[in-house]
């Protein structure tokens, strides 16, 4: 598979990188991943990755992972079904995911406290509530910083990639760790090649001139913005010139597999996530939006949202497992909050951060576990309350990062990536 990804065909147009070694902006990229190559041959992925399936708008946990069919007032319309994990039941509208539950775990007792979209999105991506004095890095950017950079300078893809949505920013880690956004997984990456008429020599000359300009402004102590700009351009040039970008090309996949994932932006995004992880990308976020269902929730879920989720997520976990990628790839499903157990007067559910569910598996975790419990109406956590930082701790452990890792913010304050929390022990 990876052999195809890094085949040098089509390189003539891009071979300006060959000359780049002599320029200030340059990084030699052609010897590329011998490491990755080896990885491809053994079929074993050696670096750790995380795929976040982001459910923007706030997904209803009561209709997906924590059904309460016995609750007269809150139960809703859906029935639970058995899964491949003994005793674990999930929604009838997630049959493909149900087959993969032996690889996945449900945390049913999350209390995340933030019930506003922006604040919840920030909290679930960073582990912290928004704070006016510091912009926290999102977990994807932390992974890019901690693990991505270890892949070496030759690795020519962004370490954090967000498909169908922007993801959350890098905070003080700097723009080189910002997620690279793929707006549409089925379209080519925009502006990837220089315009016609600008050949390799021209491009090299442009980059040499650019390096001079960048360095002269950067030398004036203008702060992180100026340094970031240069670093992002370096990454961009590296990406333009490398055959790595084949990882974005879904055309190389068999049509039947593409159908299985679902011919929609989420399904194709999941497939792209698998290709990217296979190529060595550390963090991939795939967004599926539209969960803010204040009205008519059961129709919206059963007709559209859940089938789309089911195909994409079910196929992804199956595919990763079959390719032996799941041991080193963690898959996490979450949104900014859950939805009210109570069904409102418009047949919808509202924002609910107090007792909801997230799903995580792979990356060295056990599978088929359920952590925590809510009461019979889904309102209160009755067993093992979990906080957002506990999730961050679990992801940190799963990804093999030291739990006591600490940064110094630009204002000189220490900031821990895991603050006062422990990994969820049942998962390891």
């Amino acid at each position, binding site marked *: 598979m990876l052999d195809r990804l890094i085949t040098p065909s089509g390189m003539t147009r891009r071979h300006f990188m060959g000359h780049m070694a002599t320029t*200030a902006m340059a990084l030699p990229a052609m010897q590329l991943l011998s490491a990755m190559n080896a990885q491809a041959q053994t079929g074993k992925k050696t670096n750790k990755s995380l795929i976040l399936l982001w459910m*923007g*708008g*706030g997904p209803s946990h009561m209709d997906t992972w924590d059904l309460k069919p016995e609750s007269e007032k809150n139960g809703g319309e859906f029935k639970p079904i058995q899964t491949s994990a003994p005793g674990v039941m999930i929604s009838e509208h997630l049959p493909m995911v149900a087959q993969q539950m032996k690889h996945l775990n449900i945390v049913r007792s999350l209390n995340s406290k933030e*019930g*506003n*979209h922006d604040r919840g999105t920030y909290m679930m991506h960073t582990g912290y509530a928004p704070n*006016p004095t510091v912009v926290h890095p999102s977990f994807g950017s932390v992974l890019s910083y901690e693990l991505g950079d270890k892949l070496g300078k030759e690795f020519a893809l*962004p370490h954090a990639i967000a498909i169908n*949505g*922007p993801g959350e*920013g890098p905070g003080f880690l700097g*723009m080189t760790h*910002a997620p*690279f*956004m793929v707006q549409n997984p089925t379209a080519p990456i*925009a*502006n*990837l*090649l*220089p*315009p016609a*008429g*600008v050949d390799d020599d*021209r491009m090299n*000359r*442009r980059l*040499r*001139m*650019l390096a*001079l*300009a*960048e360095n*002269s*402004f*950067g030398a004036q*102590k*203008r*702060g992180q*913005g*100026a340094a*970031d*700009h*240069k670093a*992002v*351009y370096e*990454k*961009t040039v590296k990406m*333009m010139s490398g055959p790595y970008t084949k990882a974005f090309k879904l055309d190389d996949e068999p049509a039947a597999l593409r159908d299985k994932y679902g011919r929609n932006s989420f399904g194709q995004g999941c497939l792209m996530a698998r290709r990217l992880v296979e190529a060595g990308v550390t963090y991939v976020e795939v967004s599926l*939006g*539209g969960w*803010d269902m*204040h009205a008519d929730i059961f129709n919206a879920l059963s007709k559209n949202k859940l089938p789309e989720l089911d195909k994409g997520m079910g196929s992804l976990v199956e595919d990763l497992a079959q390719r032996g990628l799941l041991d080193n790839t963690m898959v996490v499903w979450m949104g900014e909050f859950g939805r009210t157990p*109570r069904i*409102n*007067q418009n047949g919808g559910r509202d*924002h609910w951060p107090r007792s909801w569910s997230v799903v995580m598996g792979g990356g060295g975790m056990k599978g088929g576990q359920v952590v925590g419990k809510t009461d019979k109406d889904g309102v209160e956590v009755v067993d093992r309350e979990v906080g957002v930082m506990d999730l961050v701790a679990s992801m940190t452990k799963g990804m093999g990062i030291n739990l006591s890792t600490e940064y110094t913010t*630009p*204002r*000189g304050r220490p900031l821990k990536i895991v603050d006062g929390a422990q990994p969820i022990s049942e998962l390891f």
Partner: protein
Amino acid sequence: MKATSRRLAPSRGLWTLTAILGLAVAATAMAAGPDDSAKAKTKAKKDVAAVAKTSYIDEMLQDSWKSSKVKSSPLSADAEFLRRVYLDLCGRIPNVQEATAFLEMKDSGKRAKLVEYLLAHPDFAKNFGNEWSIILVGRKPAGRDVDKGALSSWLRKQITANRPWNEMAYELITAKGSNKDNGAVNYPMSHLEDGAVNLTSFTTRIFLGQQIQCTQCHDHPSNNWKQADFWSINAFFKGVKSERVMKTDAVGAEVYDHTELSDEPSNAYSKYEKRNAVVGIAFPTYLDGTKISQNADVDRREVLGKFITEKDQKQLARAFVNRVWGRLFGRGIVHTVDDFGDHNKPSHPELLEKMAEDFIASKFDVKNLYRTIMASQAYQLTSAMLKENEKDETLFSHQSLKPMTPEQLFDSLLTATSAHKAAGGNFDQIRNQWLGQFTVTFANDEEGENSNFQGTIPQALMMMNGDLMSKATGGKAGSFLHDTLDKSRAQRKPALFIVNRLYLAALGRYPNSKELNNASAFLEMNPDSIGVLEDLFWSLLNCNEFVLNH
């Protein structure tokens, strides 16, 4: 390549270029000349003496620097100030003529004069209209009932007439009638869905800097807002009605003409669901507890408008001052700029109070507020930091790097390159399409928007390889580069004259001697001089100095 220290006399490279362009290498080669570094230094010193005296803004900031043991950066040089003021007031960089006019001017009061000139410039009014229509309505495409153009042009007219902010605010909150004739109508019009829930939260957030949207569903966890407060404000908007008005077109068909907004006299109360599923009823009550008639005998939006702009004028002033401060310094005194409250304290409370009082005393004079801030030394500091203040992000001891907004970037690219003249096609369409790349809209009930495209790889790809850039630097007729080459050829100007113009166009300054040397070296080493100049222009438009408002 390594910078050489060759002298500036026309070199062989320039002769080559001359041959190609048919340019004369005159003895006046450097007539349009850049400062060499010594000259630039004395000039910078003179600038420093030239700016306004310290104001209370500076005194209050200096106190905070002293107590935090932070040293402030020196004042910016003229070119840095020039570019910043154009971006902050007009939303674009200066063009070559504007830049040279200011840089060449020998007048100790020229900075204040420039600010004054720009406050009266049509581009200031245009930019005010664009910025505020984004704040009021957003970047995303609005529906058929919202005429964004009419809103921008209404704002533009108000600021041109220097209408006080409290009056503009009142008119936006209470606007009625045709959304075509009265552009202000488009503000309430764009947030009417779901019983004006968003109009409720936008109105308190934009005009008062108070975010009550969380209390739509529950009492606020960290300040005093209760769920009932949200719905009591919402009740002021009960009775707002919109209606599409049709007209008969030339061939006799009924077509949409405009939307009419009115306030139907009705009994006003909002119904909402409490956490315990009990339905709550809220009557129109202002945030301070003042109740008003809920009967059909009052125009409730007018009462709300008065409450916000008269009763609460101090907070109205604080919110506006803080927003303008945030634009000009890259960070509000309260940060984020529209989230006031005990959970989010101002960095310089006395300064904010004083400025708000001043703003009220000036009768909410918007231009005067800009004038006051821009005359301060603090605003005029350089963004280059010192060892003694490089850790400071909240005390304004140096100017900050502000990434250009998408609109500033587009308009600045066009100012520098005239790419639109080379592009052909529908200009508005090109602009909208281009700006569309920057906006991600979240489909949720907060209508959130994100434009964190700035500084990312996709933006770098667009700047390096995008269509607009290739039109700007591809030597197409109509573009700045093409016309500059043409003109220079006709007037038999030397090549370094063109290099100078490229720096002025992109960066609003002359190249320094090192940069000129580098340009000569490239010209000398490469026979395709036009290509070299195109590439130089490309590199200036792509560099950090261009894309940052510094």
